[in-house]
């Protein structure tokens, strides 16, 4: 088992140039935005002199390549810089925001598996049957609804109308978090499930027709035990990569959903810092998200390797 995970160090090293590219793009893209932080900080009634003074103080008047090199040099020392608006290290801001977003993503992933696996099984059991049609209808509708709209609808129904859940915020205790994050996580899960269901359904149909399921039946296996023992794991293999790719998109979606549910996560931090031209924070958040997506890619391959003994990623890396 362990020898098949040899690919991880190589993949981590490969991710370094990726991170570099990301910093480069993020840095120059951020500076394409009109306006600057000094202006945003001082407000509309600032004089030209005070703006110029603050610009010099913040180092924003230096040439862009120089600013980028300073940024990189700091990065190598583990310093993401200081937020222009909050005047605290960007890393402190990340430490506060990251757990919220990670919890939200994990929660959404778990919920979407709870939705997808039974529905996909229901559909795959008799393709073309009425249940299959129902599930396929759900995936179409689920895919067609915009995330933020689903979020708002859930809020209106479950938080405003029935008062079952809070309208926003994150809570204070662990249990609180689970409760407060339920609706936003459900929103993300609803938008992620259709893709998972489609992938799982088609791979389950293939698996159910395979010879080894016939073998399992010839051993008297049936129903749930047949499903758990010989269908789910095999069908999950192609779906894992689908989930991996979609988690990347889900990060983007979670940024919007955090706004809808007023969660103090990366999304809120990102949007606030873009509006205030707080470049160090924008760069810090983007860098983190980029690295996170790289890590998801590696984790996907790890899960893939654990599920399918035929896969050897170390060979794929060398090839």
């Amino acid at each position: 088992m362990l020898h098949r995970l040899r690919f991880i160090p190589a993949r981590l090293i490969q991710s370094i140039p990726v991170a570099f590219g990301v910093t480069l793009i993020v840095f120059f893209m951020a500076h394409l935005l009109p306006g600057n932080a000094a202006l945003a900080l001082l407000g509309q009634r600032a004089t030209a002199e005070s703006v110029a003074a603050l610009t010099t103080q913040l180092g924003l008047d230096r040439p862009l390549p120089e600013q980028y090199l300073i940024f990189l040099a700091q990065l190598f020392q583990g310093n993401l810089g200081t937020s222009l608006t909050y005047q605290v290290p960007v890393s402190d801001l990340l430490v506060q925001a990251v757990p919220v977003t990670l919890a939200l993503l994990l929660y959404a992933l778990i919920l979407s598996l709870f939705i997808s696996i039974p529905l996909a099984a229901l559909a795959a059991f008799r393709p073309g049957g009425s249940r299959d049609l129902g599930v396929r209808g759900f995936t179409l509708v689920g895919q067609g609804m915009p995330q933020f709209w689903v979020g708002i609808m859930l809020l209106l129904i479950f938080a405003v109308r029935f008062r079952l859940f809070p309208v926003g915020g994150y809570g204070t205790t662990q249990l609180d978090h689970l409760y407060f994050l339920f609706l936003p996580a459900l929103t993300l899960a609803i938008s992620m499930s259709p893709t998972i269901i489609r992938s799982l359904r088609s791979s389950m149909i293939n698996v159910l027709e395979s010879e080894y399921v016939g073998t399992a039946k010839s051993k008297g296996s049936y129903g749930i035990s047949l499903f758990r023992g010989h269908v789910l794991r095999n069908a999950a293999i192609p779906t894992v990569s689908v989930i991996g790719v979609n988690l990347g998109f889900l990060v983007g979606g979670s940024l919007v959903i955090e706004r809808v549910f007023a969660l103090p996560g990366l999304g809120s931090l990102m949007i606030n810092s873009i509006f205030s031209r707080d470049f160090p924070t924008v760069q810090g958040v983007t860098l983190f998200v980029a690295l996170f997506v790289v890590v998801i890619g590696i984790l996907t391959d790890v899960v893939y390797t654990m599920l399918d003994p035929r896969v050897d990623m170390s060979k794929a890396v060398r090839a």
Partner: protein
Amino acid sequence: MTDMLLEVENLVIGMRRAGRPDAVIVDDVSFSVAAHERFGIVGESGSGKSLTLRAVAGLLPKGVEVLSGRIAYAGKSLTGMPPQERRRLMGPEIAMIFQEPMTALNPVIRVGEQIAEGPRRHLGLSKKAANTVAIEMMARTGIPDPERRARAYPHELSGGLRQRIMIAMAVSCNPRLLLCDEPTTALDVTVQHQVLKVLEGLCADTGTALIFVTHDLAVVNQTCTDMAVMYSGHIVESGTVADVLGDARHPYTQGLLGSAPDFDRPERRLVPIPGFPPSLTSRPAGCPFAPRCALAVDDCSKAMPTTELVAPGHTAACIMTAGVLA
């Protein structure tokens, strides 16, 4: 006839369209297998031999079903039995070996676990005890170093080993009837010989009856005591292996023998059967073999010949040979 382990009577397998029988693939097949008997079913691809076997196992592919007829195991009708009762028979009473062990084994589960699954379910063994049984079974099928091999995945084993795993899996609950669907077709000749020896040895030890589906007459000759020859969904000839192969009455059986090499007479020229088997949708009226048969007369195409007794325990369905010998 109640001492028969398996009785198949007038079995018709086919597909339905809009609730009505549409295509008939296996037509009016009857045979019976006694305890300890080793019964071979020979025929070319598409003759319906594998579907007949799968019907016995209850593993017909989606859309294909038993349209009429009766399959009885130890006097009890399998076709009329509730599914959960039938599933309880699968493993401890009836087991099956498939043609291609690579696709018939689950690629993501260790082979030892796959063998242990049956004993855990049917014999109520613990995981550990079932694992011991699995290793024991692997040793009995002649797998060297079974403890280590039990932890292997199917793709890590050779074709011969994989088929031994299939055999170990099938016999793990001591079934009384073993269904083999061309178990040696995917193997090369030397490995095929070894696997057949293992199978024969196990059946001789435990008294398990065997139904062996193959297209290979030599394999039937080596393994079976009785046999049936299928052509286009019908049994055209049946009897003991010695009778059928030594004194073939049906022109199709004679054609099969004439087209297979005979090591005792290597100088003999092989004579192929001309033409192709009929397709399922355009099966000719009367004897399906008539268009390819050298002995065919006009009457052959009028009605399906009845199955006649040509010698004690030896039947053939041909108006020419049955008429000649009557």
